């Protein structure tokens, strides 16, 4: 069954239909009849040049035409017919001499003008067109591969130079005088270069002698010539090189191709765009051209990454700020001179007034040894009575550990109680073992002992004591002293092993002392003694007595008031020292208590008056600030 291919939609239709059943396009006029299965294989359909007789017969009978030939439009058929007529109108068939001449021309191609190559190009182009129309291009295989004489003749017809019949216009002017447009000349040059560049040695049939450029001649001569070419050359045309080369007739272009040609009479127009200032392509396949768009977009163009300077781009203002900052930092290292202030300022005057108000009454009271103020009573000061009782319980000659752990600056507050204590101990003739956890303690203890040695009731210098010196390690040293006094302080400051002689030879632990008396102004030091040594002393009920300052008294009193008490007696501050003196009968009326009392009173008054003045002076200032804000 034969189907008709619709030229419009391309779908097969039955042959009896006049128009396409899909798109209703007329089928008979221009439809394509699809080949049926019984009519033959595809090779016959595709390859119209497979049968040489079809090529030889210029007219194609409708009944013997292939479906492809039926599908060819009329204009193309006319073109093909004209082309075939042109071929058949050749005066003679190529002979063996012609073949030899062609081969000879391949080996030594004559120099031909450029315009003679144009027909060959058209011939090649038309052959390709026919091949595309028929399905398979014309193969220019070697002659040995063609079976039979007809194939040989057909190949000879194809491979021989094709002479194009000039058109009417070309007949008026010689081919050499025809002025070709620039585009055609460029196309010819490009095609020539292309053919010359694509010539493959060993395929001489693909080479047209007329298009070989002179530059390629030497190359052809040097190429390896196949054996059959050499034989033909040697046998058939020994003197063929002498014969003149038949001129190549210009190809006859079909009318439709002529119609596509631009109007040659019109003069080529100058480019509208002025390319004088255009850029020249420097990279890519279009290198060297001017006024064209580069084939390589600039976006993907490989370029060297830009290099950035590591130097900061700063403005003058920023640089000035940096210099200012550096100057400030450099100025920080330099000591700044204290700005000179005027001596007589209100602040300095106020300070001088306060100092004078405080110092003058104190000096006056001490000078006059004032006794206007009633000294503190022992019963009103907690711990003094118990302290006195513990001292009175000490047996004569018993070893007592005495710790001097207060700063020399607190001597004015501590010394009244310490002096009274030392006097009582000397009266009791106890053996005082002096220790200290402060570096200045031994000197302070020695100074107090030597001063008290000349106090009332003491006959001669008191020597019943030893100074063991400084206990390093702070709290740890106290713990070591509690565990083994002999191990921590083996020698006295006189470098004497006091532990080997009486009365310390009976002392192996700290509980062997009759009492431990701590003289300190620091509550932390007192707490260390209580926590490290007092715990050991409580095992044998050895009394721990403390003489302290007024500032440490509130923190130590809980140890004294606790049950069982960790501190068995306490004397605190100047009031405690005076009370302890009154208890033991030593009354030191040297005006200290009156001076202390008046200094306290004046200090409180200064604070009160100063605060009132400050508030009064502050109020107008605050009112001004409020008014300014409003």
């Amino acid at each position, binding site marked *: 069954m034969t189907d008709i291919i619709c030229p419009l939609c391309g779908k097969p239709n039955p042959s009896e239909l006049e128009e396409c059943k899909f798109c209703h396009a007329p089928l008979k006029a221009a439809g394509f009849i699809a080949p049926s299965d019984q009519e033959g294989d595809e090779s016959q359909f595709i390859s119209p040049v497979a049968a040489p007789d079809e090529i030889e017969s210029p007219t194609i009978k409708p009944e013997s035409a292939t479906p492809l030939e039926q599908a060819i439009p009329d204009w193309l058929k006319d073109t093909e017919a004209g082309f075939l007529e042109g071929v058949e109108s050749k005066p003679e068939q190529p002979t063996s001499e012609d073949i030899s001449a062609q081969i000879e021309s391949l080996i030594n191609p004559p120099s031909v003008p450029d315009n003679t190559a144009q027909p060959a190009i058209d011939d090649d182009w038309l052959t390709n067109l026919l091949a595309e129309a028929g399905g398979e291009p014309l193969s220019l295989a070697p002659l040995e591969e063609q079976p039979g004489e007809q194939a040989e003749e057909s190949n000879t017809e194809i491979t021989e130079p094709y002479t194009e019949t000039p058109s009417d216009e070309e007949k008026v002017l010689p081919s050499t005088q025809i002025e070709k447009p620039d585009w055609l000349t460029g196309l010819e040059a490009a095609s020539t270069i292309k053919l010359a560049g694509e010539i493959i040695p060993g395929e001489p049939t693909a080479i047209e002698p007329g298009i070989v450029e002179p530059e390629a001649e030497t190359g052809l001569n040097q190429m390896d010539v196949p054996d059959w070419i050499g034989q033909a050359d040697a046998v058939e045309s020994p003197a063929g090189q002498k014969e003149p080369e038949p001129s190549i007739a210009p190809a006859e272009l079909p009318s439709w191709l002529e119609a596509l040609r631009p109007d040659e009479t019109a003069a080529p127009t100058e480019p509208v765009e002025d390319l004088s200032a255009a850029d020249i392509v420097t990279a890519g396949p279009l290198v060297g051209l001017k006024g064209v768009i580069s084939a390589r977009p600039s976006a993907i163009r490989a370029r060297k990454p830009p290099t950035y300077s590591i130097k900061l781009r700063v403005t003058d203002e920023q640089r000035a700020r940096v210099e200012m900052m550096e100057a400030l930092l450099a100025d920080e290292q330099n000591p700044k001179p204290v700005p000179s202030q005027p001596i007589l300022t209100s602040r300095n005057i*106020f*300070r001088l007034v*306060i*100092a004078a108000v*405080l110092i003058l009454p104190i000096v006056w009271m001490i000078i006059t040894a004032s006794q*206007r*103020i*009633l000294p503190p009573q022992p019963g009103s000061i907690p711990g003094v009575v118990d302290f006195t009782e513990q001292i009175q319980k000490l047996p004569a000659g018993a070893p007592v550990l005495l710790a001097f752990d207060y*700063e*020399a*600056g607190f*001597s*004015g507050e501590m010394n009244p109680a310490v002096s009274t204590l030392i006097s009582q101990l000397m009266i009791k003739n106890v053996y005082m073992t002096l220790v200290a956890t402060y570096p*200045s303690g031994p*000197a*302070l203890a*020695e*100074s107090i002992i*030597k001063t008290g040695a000349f106090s009332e009731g003491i006959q001669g210098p008191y020597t019943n004591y030893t*100074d063991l*010196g400084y*206990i*390093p*390690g702070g709290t*740890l*040293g106290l*713990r*070591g002293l509690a*565990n*083994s006094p002999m*191990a*921590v302080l083996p020698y006295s*400051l*006189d470098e004497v092993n006091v532990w080997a002689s009486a009365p310390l030879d009976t002392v192996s632990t700290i509980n062997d002392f009759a009492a431990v008396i701590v003289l300190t102004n620091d*509550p932390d030091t007192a*707490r260390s003694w209580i926590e490290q040594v007092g715990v050991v002393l409580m095992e044998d009920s050895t009394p721990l007595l403390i003489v302290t300052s*007024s500032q440490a*008294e*509130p*923190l130590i*009193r*809980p140890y004294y008031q606790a049950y069982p008490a960790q501190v068995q007696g306490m004397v605190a501050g100047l*009031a405690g020292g005076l009370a302890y003196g009154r208890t033991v009968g030593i009354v030191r009326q040297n005006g200290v208590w*009156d001076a202390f*009392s*008046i200094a*306290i*009173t*004046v*200090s*409180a008054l*200064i*604070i009160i*008056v*100063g*605060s009132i003045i*400050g*508030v009064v*002076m*502050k109020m107008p200032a605050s009112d001004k600030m409020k008014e300014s804000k409003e």
Partner: protein
Amino acid sequence: MKKILPTSNAIIAVISGTLVLLGYFFPGVFGSIQSVLIGWAIILAAFALLLGIFNLALVHWKKTKTAGSSKVYSIVLLISLFITIIVVSINGPTGSFSLWLFNTFQVPVEISLLAVLAIVLVYSAARLLTRKPKWYIVLFLVSVVVMLLGSVPLFLLGEVTPLILLRDWLAHVPAVAGARGLLLGVALGTVATGLRILLGVDRPYGG
């Protein structure tokens, strides 16, 4: 060696701390070991004191080589240190010259500093309300005045019993409460630090 030393240091510290701690709870068993370890620590502390004195002298020796007026104080310190060392080395720590140096220079200087401190504190308290009269500043000043007036019999007034009672209450209740609170916090922190050192978490000795 760098890996062994930190481990060995940690082991020594943990074992020593544990033995000293056990000496408090079991003095009969670990008391002697505790005494030995504490004796070693006391010797090290004494050497640390000497090292501190040497460092002090070295720092001020370097300061004397720098330009400026502050080097005068360093020169005075070095001269004083040198003279004291010489005198005490020759005369002994309780010799007459040594005690003269102590009673002539150190005791008056320390007492003078405290006296100046007393005047500065009074001056500062008097000017305290001239800056920002906040309620807590007023409370502080009132407490100061009450403590001063309640400490001693007032001049020309004698003892003011309400002030004395109020002073005793302030000194032994709020003040001691605050101080004890601080001590409890310090004690808890000390316990935590001690446990961390005993467990080897904190290694102040390095490693």
